[in-house]
């Protein structure tokens, strides 16, 4: 128990005064000393070490009154009050005032059921405000995330450019983009067209026509397995770099991606490198006069399965 302010102080022989002040140690949060007001004979600072017992209204010391009188007088200027300084956590450890200071508890607040009800009713009312906003806000933010895809046919060149079989020929074309409210711009893209022999065609189609569907599952176009022209997307399926047609020392003429050295043969099959899947094919149409048209598509890079994103 901490010595209470205003409680009497008694030495071994007689009563000497009362507790005027209490001094706390800011590090250990304990009472280190207290100040005795000696009935008109000044104030003395008494360390807690000489205290024998502490009760509600009495502090009993071991030393005699003369020993206490011999202590140096208390120097107030060496100390500050708790209001003048910030010592976190100290207040909780101060119990030097007997009794409590109280204010009336309002009649209306005494009912716990009422209090709880209104607290919860506040949350429910908040629900009426917040919940209706959730769905519209989410849809608002998600607007450009799953935009419908553009399935226009683009003219990219003439097959007269393709001189040999099973050789990659780069076709460059422009695609017009309209993003939200921005004016229409054109971006330059490239695709690789290969005039494939039946053996290569077999490797690509494996006996089945290639069907392209939109996000709702409706078929857009089917690449017939007997049409000899293949159009590969110009983006490497590994991480989207633009690849080239090169002569490899060992593997011969191949598609080679300079970024991470993925190598593909004329059918798009992965020969070497980190590519997760073969080259992506796009829908292709070749007219009687040799005009090549494609539907420009882009696919998610780095995945084994092919997911169209543009």
């Amino acid at each position, binding site marked *: 128990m901490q010595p209470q302010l205003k409680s009497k102080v008694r030495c071994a022989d007689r009563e000497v005064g009362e507790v005027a002040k209490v001094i706390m140690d800011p590090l250990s949060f304990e009472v280190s000393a207290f100040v005795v007001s000696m009935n008109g004979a000044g104030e003395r600072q008494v360390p807690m070490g000489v205290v024998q017992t502490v009760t509600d209204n009495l502090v009993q010391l071991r030393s005699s009154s003369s020993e206490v009188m011999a202590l140096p007088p208390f120097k107030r200027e060496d100390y500050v009050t708790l209001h003048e300084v910030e010592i976190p956590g100290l207040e909780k450890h101060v119990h030097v005032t007997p009794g409590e200071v109280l204010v009336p508890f309002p*009649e*209306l607040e005494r009912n716990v*059921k009422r209090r*709880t*009800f*209104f607290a*919860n*009713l506040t949350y*429910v009312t908040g629900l*009426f405000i917040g919940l209706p906003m959730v769905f519209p806000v989410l849809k608002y933010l998600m607007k450009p995330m799953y935009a419908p895809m553009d399935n226009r046919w683009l003219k990219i060149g003439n097959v007269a450019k393709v001189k040999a079989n099973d050789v990659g020929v780069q076709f460059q074309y422009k695609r017009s983009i309209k993003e939200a409210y921005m004016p229409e711009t054109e971006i330059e893209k490239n695709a690789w067209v290969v005039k494939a022999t039946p053996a290569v065609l077999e490797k690509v189609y494996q006996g089945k026509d290639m069907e392209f569907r939109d996000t709702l599952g409706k078929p857009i176009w089917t690449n017939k397995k007997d049409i000899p022209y293949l159009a590969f997307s110009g983006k490497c399926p590994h991480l989207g770099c633009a690849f080239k047609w090169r002569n490899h020392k060992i593997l011969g003429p191949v598609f080679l991606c300079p970024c991470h050295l993925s190598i593909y043969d004329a059918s798009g099959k992965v020969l070497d490198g980190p590519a997760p899947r073969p080259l992506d094919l796009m829908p292709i149409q070749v007219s009687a006069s040799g005009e090549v048209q494609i539907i420009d598509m882009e696919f998610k890079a780095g995945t084994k399965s092919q997911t169209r994103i543009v």
Partner: protein
Amino acid sequence: MQKAEVIRTRSHSSCIVRQAPPGIWMNDHMSPTKLGFGILWPACWTGLPFKLALAVLFLAFGIVDFETRIALAFMMLLASPVSVFALPTITMGLGSHIGDGAGIGLLFMLAIPIDIWALGLAGRTFLLERCRREPPARLGLILWWKCAFVGAIFLPILWVTERATTDVAISIAHSLFEDGFLEGTPIAERISIELTLWGTVATVVLSCLFVIGLSLVGRMLRGTIQAAPHTSENYEGLITRWDLMRVPADPGLMLTVLSGVAVVLSLLFWSTLPVLTPHPHECCRKAETKAPPEFKALETLNKDEKMISQLAARVEFLIEQQAAAELEKAKSKKKGRADHEAVIEPDATEPVPAAVMAP
């Protein structure tokens, strides 16, 4: 310190004070206007949040459209305990309206149970705190039909009177400027002065009618109030009572039900909120997009095949015709050389297929 005062009930006093502690702001005999206001004002505002939630929902559904009368509609909805039966009279009889849509009638019908509940709550509070009486059972219903009755009769009268007064005031103000002694004032000043003149008249008349209306309501309700027995509970007790009256018997159930209602209303709101603006600007009206005609592969193939065979047949026919024509030419030349040689008409080849006739 307490004075026990017994005040003789007079025929038009609505509250009796028995043991009035000194200084309490209480009323020996409350005027009917104060009575009417003291019950109607809290009841109308208590019901408003619920009525507003319904109004917003109906707006999202699109079954109600307030146009330029939204302020008037708001006031009418706020005062629905008195306006609910006056509205049909005003709309149909007097030709005014507060908006279009089937939703308006529905809104006011749904406001009825809300108003009954609100009037019950406000009435009980008023009785306990201001009159120190025990609220009777079904207070809400009684108060409601009395208010609705007064409103049904008085509101149309108020409407007509206010409109007539305003019209007269406007025309008088106008004439002051047209050919009265204020002729020649510049436009801006004229507008403000005119507005002040007829606005003051209209406001004063409206305020008087309003007070009269409240007084009528108060008089109507007085009977119910006076019939309620006194309670001897002290002030503190009464306040606690009406305060705790607002806590339902089963708070958990009430809160669950309310949460459920919030979820249901939100779902309804989400399903009916128009995705794109209901008032598109001229620049950006959405063009009618027709779905591209379905591509029926088999049908097209059959059609094409038929067409090809038709065309092939026609080509054959034309070739033969040409051959025949050339033969004719050769023959006529021969004829020119050999006179009496009978020309054997070449066979007309195959009969012309009927299909070729139809293109």
